[in-house]
């Protein structure tokens, strides 16, 4: 009975993306044609994307980046694709103006957040709608620890740890992970929809606490005058520089997340997602592994919070609202649940596109449509999300099976057979 009920709830967190893989496997010829095409196309696209800001002064360069990212990420297993993608991400913002660089910063930040939420939702299958809580925790931790007395809350004025951004990062990792466990414990028995509702409430509680605990957080007045990250005698104070900080952390997070996924821990999560009862009858302590997923997801969210607080130089409770949780979840789903590669793409779309559309204009000779981007950008954005979900319900870049890892075992089998 319990088993059947879970089956009904599961489609929320397990999209049928693996059918696609089966089909791709069935037609090796199709994948082979796909493998060689990019070798011609990619250098052109990469060079185009890097030069684009100089040539095209419009933000269409961003759309070009989207295309490059999509193609690159599809072949990211090859070092070649990785190099071109990394080059594009590093070079592209150089020719951008402040507004565009801000967008790129947000994309990098949300990529980091997406990687964290993906551990919880994509790997362990726990639907978390309160992810903003950990983001807020990281931001407030930074604000409380580093704020000068002029901007700090009453409580934080009493002490001074004298630490910088770089020291707060590991602190945020630990504090957010502990908060993740604190959220995890009461919701362990909940699944699917029920879990989503409780986590939703948790996200709101953190925000409301930040607003009402005036003594600790300065309430709605916020904490401000936060210092920027020091870097070899100077400060990283532009969106452009902080973009690289966020990007670097996102890259480290990607590597860590993929390595955990491909280990005993990742298999345990996958087993729990597929069938929790069977997983525990295989000796997996489901309590521990669910809490671990919450803790790791939260820790990454906490890092993101530290970065945003440092960039903004201030924290206000209402910056950490439900929209953040929804956006992060949306980019995970659109990028491709369970796949960290899809997350960059999802972030480009969900976080980048609405801003990029701002000055997208077509003159159709109709007054209402003169400024189609600025006026209708959210309509266009919403419609494109709906279109993506209808056309590719599994996300743009669903996770691929790890066939390569097991080819080793296959070879071993052949040796045994002969």
């Amino acid at each position, binding site marked *: 009975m319990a088993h059947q009920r879970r089956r009904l709830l599961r489609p929320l967190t397990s999209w049928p993306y693996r059918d696609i893989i089966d089909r791709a496997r069935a037609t090796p010829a199709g994948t082979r044609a796909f493998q060689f095409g990019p070798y011609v196309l990619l250098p052109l696209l990469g060079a185009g994307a890097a030069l684009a800001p100089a040539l095209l002064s419009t933000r269409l360069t961003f759309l070009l980046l989207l295309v490059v990212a999509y193609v690159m990420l599809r072949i990211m297993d090859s070092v070649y694709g990785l190099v071109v993608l990394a080059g594009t991400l590093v070079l592209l913002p150089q020719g951008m103006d402040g507004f565009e660089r801000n967008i790129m910063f947000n994309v990098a930040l949300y990529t980091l957040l997406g990687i964290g939420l993906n551990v919880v939702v994509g790997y362990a299958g726990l639907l978390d709608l309160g992810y903003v809580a950990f983001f807020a925790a990281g931001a407030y931790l930074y604000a409380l620890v580093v704020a000068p007395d002029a901007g700090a809350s009453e409580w934080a004025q009493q002490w001074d740890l004298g630490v910088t951004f770089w020291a707060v990062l590991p602190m945020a990792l630990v504090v957010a992970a502990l908060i993740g466990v604190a959220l995890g414990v009461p919701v362990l028995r909940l699944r699917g929809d029920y879990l989503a509702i409780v986590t939703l409430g948790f996200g709101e509680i953190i925000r409301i606490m930040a607003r009402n605990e005036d003594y600790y957080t300065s309430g709605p007045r916020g904490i401000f005058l936060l210092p920027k990250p020091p870097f070899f005698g100077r400060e990283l104070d532009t969106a452009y520089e902080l973009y690289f900080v966020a990007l670097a952390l996102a890259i480290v997070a990607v590597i860590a997340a993929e*390595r955990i996924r491909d*280990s005993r821990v990742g*298999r*345990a999560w*996958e087993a729990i997602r597929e069938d929790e009862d069977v997983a525990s*009858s295989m*000796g997996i302590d489901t309590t521990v592994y669910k809490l671990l997923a919450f803790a790791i997801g939260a820790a990454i969210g906490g890092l993101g919070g530290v970065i945003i607080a440092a960039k903004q130089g201030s924290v206000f409770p209402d910056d950490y609202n439900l929209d953040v949780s929804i956006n992060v979840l949306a980019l995970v789903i659109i990028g491709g649940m369970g796949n960290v590669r899809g997350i960059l793409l999802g972030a480009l779309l969900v976080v980048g596109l609405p801003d990029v559309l701002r000055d997208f204009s077509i003159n159709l000779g109709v007054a209402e449509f003169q400024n189609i981007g600025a006026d209708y950008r959210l309509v266009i954005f919403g419609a494109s999300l709906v279109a993506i979900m209808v056309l590719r319900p599994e996300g743009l870049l669903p996770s691929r099976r790890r066939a390569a890892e*097991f080819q080793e075992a296959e070879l071993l089998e052949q040796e045994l057979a002969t």
Partner: protein
Amino acid sequence: MPILSVRHVSRAFEGLVALNDVSIDVDEATIVGVIGPNGAGKTTLFNILTGFYRPTSGEVWFCEARIDGLPMHRIAAAGISRTFQNIRLFSNMTAIENVMVGQHLHLGTNVATAILRPPATVASERRAIEQSAEHLRFVGLSGRENELARNLPYGEQRRLEIARALAVRPRLILLDEPSAGMNAGESIAMMDLIRELRDDLRVTVILIEHQMRVVMGVCERISVLDYGEKIAEGTPAEVQRDQRVIEAYLGTGHLQRRGEP
């Protein structure tokens, strides 16, 4: 000293008594059958042995330790693993991944070593793959390693469940209707596999089975459940002659009709 001792176990579901004062002893390295009509409480018994249910009363002892009421993963660690009546593989994982999940208890990778991948972790992962391939070979699924579990034919899914259960390295394995839905040839192959579990791996086997050919062919001892009570126990020959077993399976009306003319 029996390896498993079920002592006066009862289990009720809101008034419905699924098991009533059932006691069963199982000796190490034997193959024991549990039979009975539908709804007799066989699967409930398995669920109690693996910790999915707590008994309402009574005790379960395994390897001289009391295990009733322990969480499922602790019971798995104690050395009991199982297969399921309605196959419950991790259907979106490959065959070898399913088996590797079964090895969970015997690998030491944690988050830190997963990220840093020291040589010891890489080596243990490689060993896990090799051992999983070996388990698959044992149940006759060589060459199927990278097949998604749900794409395997039904009979192979049953075997994969056994391979996954073996990866836990159990001392006792519970098979819930291992040959359900199989034809005669497949059933005989399954019986051979069950015997190999015991003969080659020295694993104690308890199986629930409806196919009498399998039960009588492979089990050394049989316990019969009916309406949650153990009504008979003994060798296959003894059980077949038992009057209460015949009644449970064919109904008392059968005997009356036979006596009437």
